[in-house]
């Protein structure tokens, strides 16, 4: 089995040349010029901060325990053993719960299409499975985006922070977000100032709904037993009442005949 792959994106190194975006568009046959927003035709976006001196890539984070995988009712999303999170349009029914559920708001929709699909970064799954690196990492000649085994990249990120005191904030974004992601970021500026959602839970998000979902069978059985029990009691009570009424009627018949008229 392949070791889980990842991307390490060092924001301090990025010069905003957009080569990653062009390579991404070419590899995935997407139309359109590089954009600062993700869309159905832009799997990666580049946003600039601090008067165009700091550039931040946006792309699918490829979570270790992806929310989209757990959210999709028909299982259209899968986490592959290369680390990529992939979408299968042949299963999708178009409920868009994945878009709602994603803590990083990554999945994009083909709103204009009559047969709409979800679109997002595929971490160049075919290339990676064939032993190559992702198109964006290959295109990044200055090494702001590097591709490798996730374990190695985490070590590398830690090393860069430790060996360059003051150059980075002491935080690897993606190390623990949503239980860990396959895209890791390093930055010199606090992440919250670069539009990164900082309130993403540090635990795997699917647990939030599984805690409730796992109780469903227990609830169904318990509720069934209780309801049948109550019904049995009330039905029995009605039966007894009817029987008693019948008896009273029988007893009172002669009396009525005697006293009446």
């Amino acid at each position, binding site marked *: 089995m392949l070791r889980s792959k990842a991307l390490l994106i060092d924001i301090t190194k990025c010069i905003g040349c957009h080569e990653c975006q062009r390579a991404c568009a070419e590899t995935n046959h997407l139309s359109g010029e590089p954009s600062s927003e*993700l*869309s159905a035709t832009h799997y990666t976006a580049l946003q600039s901060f601090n008067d165009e001196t700091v550039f931040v890539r946006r792309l699918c984070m490829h979570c270790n325990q992806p*929310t989209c995988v*757990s*959210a*999709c*009712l*028909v*299982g259209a999303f899968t986490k592959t053993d290369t680390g990529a999170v992939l979408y299968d349009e042949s*299963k*999708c*029914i*178009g*409920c*868009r*719960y994945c*878009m*709602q*559920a994603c*803590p990083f*708001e990554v999945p*994009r*929709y083909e*709103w*204009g*299409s*009559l*047969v*709409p699909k979800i679109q997002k970064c595929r971490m160049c799954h075919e290339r990676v499975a064939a032993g190559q690196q992702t198109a964006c990492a290959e295109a990044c000649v200055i090494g702001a985006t590097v591709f490798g085994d996730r374990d190695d990249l985490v070590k590398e990120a830690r090393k860069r922070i430790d060996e360059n005191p003051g150059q980075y904030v002491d935080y690897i974004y993606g190390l623990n977000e949503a239980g860990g992601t396959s895209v890791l970021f390093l930055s010199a500026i606090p992440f919250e100032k670069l539009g990164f*959602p900082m*309130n*993403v*839970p540090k635990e795997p*998000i*699917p647990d*939030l*709904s*599984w805690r*409730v*979902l796992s109780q*469903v069978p227990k*609830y*169904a059985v318990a*509720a*069934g037993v209780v*309801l*049948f029990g*109550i*019904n049995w009691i*009330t*039905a029995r*009570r*009605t039966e007894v009442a009817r029987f008693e009424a019948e008896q009273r009627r029988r007893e009172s018949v002669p009396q009525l005949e005697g006293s009446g008229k």
Partner: protein
Amino acid sequence: MIIKGFERYMKLTFWKAVAIVLMALGLIAAIQRFSSGLGATTNLKDTFPWGIWIGFDILVGVGLAAGGFTIAATVYIFGLERFRPILRPTILTAFLGYLLVIAGLMVDLGRPWAIWHAIIMWNPHSVMFEVAWCVMLYTTVLALEFSPVVLEHFKLRRLLKVIKAVTVPLVIAGVILSTLHQSSLGSLFLIIPGRMHPLWYSNIIPFLFIISCVAAGLAMTIVESYFPSRAFGRELELPLLSELARVIVVVLALYFTVRIQDLMSRDALQYVFQPTYQSVMFLVEIILGVVLPFFLLLSTRIRQSRTGLFYSAALVLLGFVAHRMNTAITSMEHWPQRVYIPSVQEVCVTLGLVAFGFSAFAFVARYFPVFGEEPHAVHEATVTEPVETLAPATTE
């Protein structure tokens, strides 16, 4: 007599005309949606993938159907036979509600033709999976629960006997499925902790959804009893509805306590007092939709007046609609980056579905024994009793 009939005729025509216009507009909007796609006809976008078709048509539609399981359980499980006269109209509401939810879903889904995938492609880790199965199974249960009305009308005695024999298990399945469905619609939002406003995100949303739907389901029963009594000149079962109103009072009190306690435990009560769009919506939801009807219905005089009951129940519905819409929409809005205002087509489809619901209810109530003179006979009579006596409840 003639004048009275004429008046009624006129009244019906006006509402009929409104309904026809709304349904026509809804149909046009739906056709547009299927010919030009979601993007061109809705204000949904990547940052706001769910709008009023989910927030209202589905979340509210399912909630208003909750009377179905409460009244069915009251009559069949708890044996409170005196509520039987309102059983059928409530089941009918629930059944129509679910059919409309499915209709709304078909418009909202990007690939509605693939909806059957839910039957064979399973992901038990998805709340949406639970939702889908609850919709499928509970709609079936509701159809069976309502079927005696149709079977009686067409005098299909043998089938009627079969349904009668399985009524109790059906009702129990209905209660389980319905409560699971209500709660799972709330659980859908558990997975979105980051984006929702703290006034609505809570890990007890599923529980809140169950409590609130009980009040709303009962309020819906009161509200819809008001219309047939006007449209068909039938007396609504006032003492029964007053009793329902008392239950609503208790449920509202429970709901209010749980809701406020939840806010306090999450330290989110502070957001109520900040002057934001969200806090206004929250106050509308709680003050107008929970506190006000609670105090109104505390009064015996209001509980025993038709109009009083109607307007108080309407407020309960308002509060309920506000809670579900706020959960699905308001809580995700962030001025000015993330705002959602439904498009004309979204509103038209929604209104069209509501109009269709009312029309279908009126139609079924008119031609089938829903408010039947002898609903008791069907269930309580011995099996040998001839079905011919169960005259369909046609109005003069």
